[in-house]
């Protein structure tokens, strides 16, 4: 449908990039690095402006035109603040944790294709720092390593709030990484490659957001959980944990954590664009114009698609209150993961059957539906009965006594209710029964 200039065969970009001289690589790396820094500054400004508008106030508008230099000023101000290290902190780890958190954030962006083949100083190359055969796994790996920075910073601070914040963050990021990875699998299945450039070129006949809507939704949700952003910003819930894992950090170390968070947002938005929105390809009505998908113009499409995701990040923050931690973990473990698994089985089944039987006919679809249904039913049968659970929780001995006055002979349970059934205690039932008419559950 789109007239795409260069051969979109798998591995084409890899071959193209292998010819890059080292100076070109360095130029690209520096440009991407600068782009990420500028995007971070711009995002902080944009976030404050947009959230400001959503809350009926102007937001920063004093430094520079439209307040654009506000975040630059904030960054400089942070640099001239005192660098405090608490006495209880572990010196080496406290020092290195911001570095560990920053590096993977930048490295992950290296595999994102920003555009097709272009010519830089007479040298033909792709607008991408690196195209690896395992491209998309690099993103997952980097986001995993980034957690170390957060965990170590909380651990090394020698303070309760950062410790709690960092543990929450670790549990949260690994939980949502599962959903993230599972949602990518369906994309890899259709693209037939882990390389990001190949995934983009596989989408020239249709973006994967239309083909794989469930994957996209799971990805979009876990993307927010993965970057610790509102409404999933539990690691830095200021009402519970002061500042979360970076409570004890100040000055440029704090700035690095801030930078890593925003770079991660930009990176994951770029990944979402690459996987589901066709990367640098022009959106539909524009894609009919010939030549719109070649040269430097695709960078514009890419950045604008990325900003759609970045705006949604801000929008979510301006709209939704923070989730409770147990609800948040429940969403990740009990909804996103099973949905992704069933979806992967369905997509894989469809794919294999279509290869076996050519075009999909009605019986094939019915067969697929039957398989999916059987899997879903088997999973559902093995799941616990929610009613039974609630019953269990509700079988606490009823409290005797009217509302303001607690029962005076309240017996303290000797063990948690769940274990009491297994270990039967001798004298406890009598005293309870005699004392307040409470009944031990059988």
């Amino acid at each position, binding site marked *: 449908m789109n007239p795409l200039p260069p051969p979109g065969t798998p591995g084409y970009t890899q071959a193209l990039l292998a010819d890059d001289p080292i100076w070109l690589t360095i130029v690209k790396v520096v440009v991407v690095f600068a782009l990420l820094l500028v995007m971070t500054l711009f995002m902080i400004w944009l976030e404050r402006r947009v959230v400001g508008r959503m809350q009926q106030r102007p937001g920063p508008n004093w430094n520079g035109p439209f307040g654009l230099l506000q975040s630059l000023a904030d960054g400089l101000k942070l640099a001239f*603040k005192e660098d405090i290290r*608490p006495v209880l902190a572990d010196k080496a780890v406290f020092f290195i944790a911001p570095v560990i958190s*920053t590096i993977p954030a930048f490295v992950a962006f290296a595999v994102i294709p920003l555009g097709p083949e272009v010519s830089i100083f007479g040298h033909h190359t792709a607008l991408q720092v*690196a195209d*690896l055969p395992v491209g998309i796994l690099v993103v997952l790996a980097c986001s995993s390593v980034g957690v170390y920075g957060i965990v170590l910073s909380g651990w090394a601070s020698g303070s309760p709030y950062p410790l709690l914040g960092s543990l929450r963050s670790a*549990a949260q990021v690994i939980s949502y*990484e599962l959903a993230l990875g599972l949602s990518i*699998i369906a994309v890899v299945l259709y693209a037939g490659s882990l390389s990001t450039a190949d995934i983009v070129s596989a989408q020239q006949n249709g973006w994967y957001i239309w083909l794989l809507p469930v994957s996209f939704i799971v990805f979009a949700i876990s993307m927010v959980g993965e970057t610790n952003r509102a409404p999933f910003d539990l690691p830095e819930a200021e009402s519970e944990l002061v500042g979360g894992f970076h409570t004890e950090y100040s000055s440029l170390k704090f700035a690095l954590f801030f930078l890593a968070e925003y770079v991660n947002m930009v990176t994951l938005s770029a990944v979402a664009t690459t996987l589901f929105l066709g990367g640098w390809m022009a959106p539909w009505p524009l894609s009919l114009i010939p030549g719109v998908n070649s040269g430097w113009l695709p960078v514009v499409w890419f950045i604008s698609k990325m900003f759609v995701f970045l705006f949604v990040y801000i929008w979510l923050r301006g709209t939704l209150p923070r989730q409770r931690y147990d609800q948040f973990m*429940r969403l990740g473990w009990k909804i996103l993961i099973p949905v992704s698994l069933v979806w992967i*089985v369905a997509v894989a089944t469809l794919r294999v059957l279509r290869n076996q039987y050519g075009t999909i006919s009605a019986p094939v679809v019915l067969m697929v539906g039957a398989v999916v249904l059987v899997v879903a039913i088997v999973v559902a049968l093995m799941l616990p009965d929610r009613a039974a659970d609630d019953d269990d929780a509700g079988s606490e001995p009823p409290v005797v006594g009217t509302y303001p006055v607690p029962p005076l002979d309240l017996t303290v349970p000797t063990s948690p209710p769940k274990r009491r059934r297994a270990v039967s205690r001798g004298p406890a039932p009598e005293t309870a029964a005699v004392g307040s008419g409470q009944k031990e559950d059988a």
Partner: protein
Amino acid sequence: MQGSAGLTAYVPLIVMFVLAGGFALFSVTAAPYIGPRRYNRAKLDTYECGIEPSPQPVVGGGRVPVAYYLTAMLFILFDIEMVFLYPFVINIDALGLFGLVEIVLFIGTVAFAYAYVWRRGGLDWT
């Protein structure tokens, strides 16, 4: 193509690593020298909203709730499953119906473990 271009493809990642690492290390090292340094004992205490901080172990901030350990173990279980799924979906066309049946059996096995953990309350956050 895979042979010679295999490892050189990673050079840009190393360059990026060095650049980002240099930037971060420079910032972290320079921070104490750029900013002011005024000694104050209270400032170096553990942050606890203005009250005297509660006593802490010398290193490491204290004990880790065991629920996090469980989450980490479950993560490993499912992460390994995910790792196995990637090679399968890459080669799905070559493997055909046989591969599909095998992977459904595999996912079924993991789903059984998953349902067991769910039933035992391993996924509930208390």
